[in-house]
Each structure stands twice: as C-alpha cells, then as structure tokens.
C-alpha cells in the first residue's frame, strides 16, 4: 500500500507557480489514473514520490517503510526507494543493449519479478541484443516498462508512457501495460493528459487541477 499525503509548493516552476496538495492511498493491485493539463503538476507529483523532488510538507509511506516525512526530516534518496518509474521519453541508456538496460536495476539475488517473465509478457525477446537507437518508439517504451519492473518495485509509476507515440503505436503498447498491471499486482499510478487512455488502464481516475486531486466519478 502506498500512502501519499504531500504538499508541493514551487513558486518558481517553469510554466506557472505550482501549489499542489495530493492525498491518496493506493493498495496493491490497484491502478490509480491521474489526468491533468500540462503544467498541472502530474510529473512533479510522480517525481516527488520517486524521490527526485522534495515536497514542501507531508508524508509518503510504502507499507511499513517511511520514504518521506517532513516533520521527522526523513527523505530517502531515489536509489533507496523501490520505485519503478517509467518516464515519458523512456530514458533508455544509449550505450547499453536492451538486455543490459533491463538488468540495470535488477537485484543480484531474490528477484520476485524475473527477466524471462518480463521479456515474455512485453514480447521483447527479439530486441534483447539491440541498442536503444535501433528500436521504434513503442519498443523503447516496452523496454522502459520492463526495466522499471525488474527493479522489483513496490510501486509502479507511469508518467505519460504513451505520450510520444502515434495512435497506432499507442494501441499496440496499451495492452502490454494492462497485462503488466494485471500480472504483477503492483500498486500503479498512471499519469496522462489523455482521458481515454487513463480510463482504459486505471481502476479509478482522479483529475489534477488547481493543485487539488478530485476523483472523476464517471
């Protein structure tokens, strides 16, 4: 279970000043979708959970593990948070093969999610020896999802994973994402500005606007 109750105050944000309050609980096996316009703070929220940004106040907890607590001055660095973050642009390491990318975050022992399983679900076996520069946009995102999963995360964060793809590729990748969420049962936060996409993946959908998260009923 991921518990988030944070405030983010960024008076000098790139687009406009950002004041955000996010409060939600995300149990295992559930996928929470967050929609919002560009600059509403979706990526900022995910980066705060991953430890790449520090919220102004509040608490982030994953199960019994405290990741952030402003009052207790707890701030785990990103490399100590078992988070699988899929970036908008994939961010595959260009000097490594697909297989090396996949193995990068894998623990040496006690892997719950194993390479053959991930490779199989995402259908990336033929790509293993290739370099990221030899992959299409959809293939890159599938590898990025696999890499995040093999980190053995306790929460999966997807930051507009399909935003760089055309409609045809989106339709190709979307089933893989749904399959991943269904198979591994990880609490998943799926962020996008495309309502249909979020609705297709998520169990419940929230709208992020004016710094507040509001549940979308229909």
């Amino acid at each position: 279970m991921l518990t988030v109750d944070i405030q983010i105050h960024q008076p000098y944000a790139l687009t406009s000043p950002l004041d955000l309050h996010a409060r939600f609980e995300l149990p295992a096996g559930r996928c929470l979708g967050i929609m919002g316009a560009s600059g509403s703070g979706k990526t900022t929220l995910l980066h705060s959970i991953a430890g790449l940004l520090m919220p102004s106040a509040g608490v982030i907890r994953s199960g019994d593990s405290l990741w952030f607590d402003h009052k207790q001055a707890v701030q785990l660095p990103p490399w100590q948070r078992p988070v699988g973050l899929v970036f908008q642009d994939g961010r595959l390491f260009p000097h490594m093969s697909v297989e090396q990318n996949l193995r990068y975050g894998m623990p040496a022992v006690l892997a719950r999610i194993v390479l053959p399983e991930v490779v199989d679900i995402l259908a990336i076996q033929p790509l293993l020896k290739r370099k990221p520069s030899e992959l299409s946009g959809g293939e890159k995102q599938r590898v990025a999802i696999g890499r995040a999963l093999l980190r053995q995360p306790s929460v999966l964060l997807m930051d507009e994973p399909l935003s760089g793809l055309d409609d045809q590729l989106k339709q190709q990748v979307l089933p893989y994402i749904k399959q991943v969420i269904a198979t591994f049962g990880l609490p998943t936060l799926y962020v996008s500005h495309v309502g249909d996409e979020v609705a297709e993946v998520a169990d419940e959908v929230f709208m992020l606007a004016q710094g507040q998260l509001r549940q979308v009923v229909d």
Partner: protein
Amino acid sequence: MWNLSPAELAIVLLSLKVAACCVLVLLLPAIGMAWLLARKQFWGHALVDALVHLPMVLPPVVLGYMLLVLLGRRGWIGRWLYEQFHIQLTFHWWGAVIASAVMAFPLMVRAIRQALMQVNPLLEQAAQTLGASPAKTFLTITLPLAYHGVLTGGILAFSRSLGEFGATITFAGNLEGETRTLPLAIYSLTQSPEGDAAALRLVILSVLVSVAALLVSQWLERRLLRSQR
C-alpha cells in the same frame, strides 16, 4: 642515418614512459575536477576554474620555478618529502612526469568537462530511480557516455607531455638518461657544434612518435565507438 643509437632509443623510451605516466597520474584528478566544474555550483567556482586553467596562460618556466619552490629538495613540500621518505623529485624522471602533468592538467580537464556537460542529466536521474547510487550512476552512466572526452583528454595530455620543455628543464633538470626527454635532447644537441644531424634525427623521430600516438588514439576511439553503437 636511420639506425637509432642506444642513447637515442633510451631518449624515446623515456619520453614515452613520462608521457604515459603523465596520463595515468592525471586521469583521476582530471575526471574529478572536470565533474566538479561541470556538475557542481559552489562558492569560488570561477576561482577554481581560473586556477585550473592557469598553466595554459603562464610561461612554462614560471610553472617549473613554482614547482621547484614547492617540490624542490629545499621546497615547502619537497623538503618534507625528502626528510620523511627520501623522495626527491628534481633530477628524477618522476619530476618530469609531474612537470608535464601540471602543464597538461587543464587540457585534460577541459576535454572531459565538455564531454560531461553533453551527458543528459535525465539519464542519471533514471539510473537513480533504478537503485543506482551517485557513485554507481557516475561509473556506469556518466563516465561511459563521456568516454570520448576522457580519450581526447588523454591524447592531449600525452601529446603535451611529449612536447613539454620549459617546466621540465626548470624543475626536473636536463639529466641524460633520467630527465632528458625528446625536446630536451633536441635542445641539448642544438647547443653542440656537431649535433645538427643528430638533432634532425630526433626531430623526425618526435614527429613520428606523435603521429603514431594520434593514429593509435583514433583507432581506439573508433573501436570504442563501435562497441557502444
């Protein structure tokens, strides 16, 4: 004309040894300094930057003299080195290494710094979300992606060391078999009435060694590039 005498061969080997050691000695400090200047903002950044580049604008003889004051047998640090460990850098080939390393340091830092600045910090961020500590991120992402800068810096340092004269002769001296590298040997020969032919041979040898070093580095770069594609 083209048969190298044992003395000439010794000069070439000494020059190569000094240049290779210069690169090895500089590698870690240059990478560290380049990273500091490329990635960190701190009070005094501009001053450190200026100090790093000082050897590029100061006359080499001035630097040689400064090294003598610092590391000479009666120098501030040199005296202590000699009294504690019996280490004397002047009139020793390690002195030539240090003199050329000081001269080559800014060249190496500049090349690596430029390469580090071209590495996308978002990739480092991605590595950290995959559990990589800053040290692992640097060693597995940043440095491999900036390898061409390290290679270029190494070549520049090697070449600078091969051609170093002023600081070496001032600090390490011009001792045959110990600190007399190619440029110093050429200089010595031009000072003697019958040395012209031998000096010309060493000049040609100098050019050949430098061209060979450049060819090897280009070959190395191509190989590295191929392995990363």
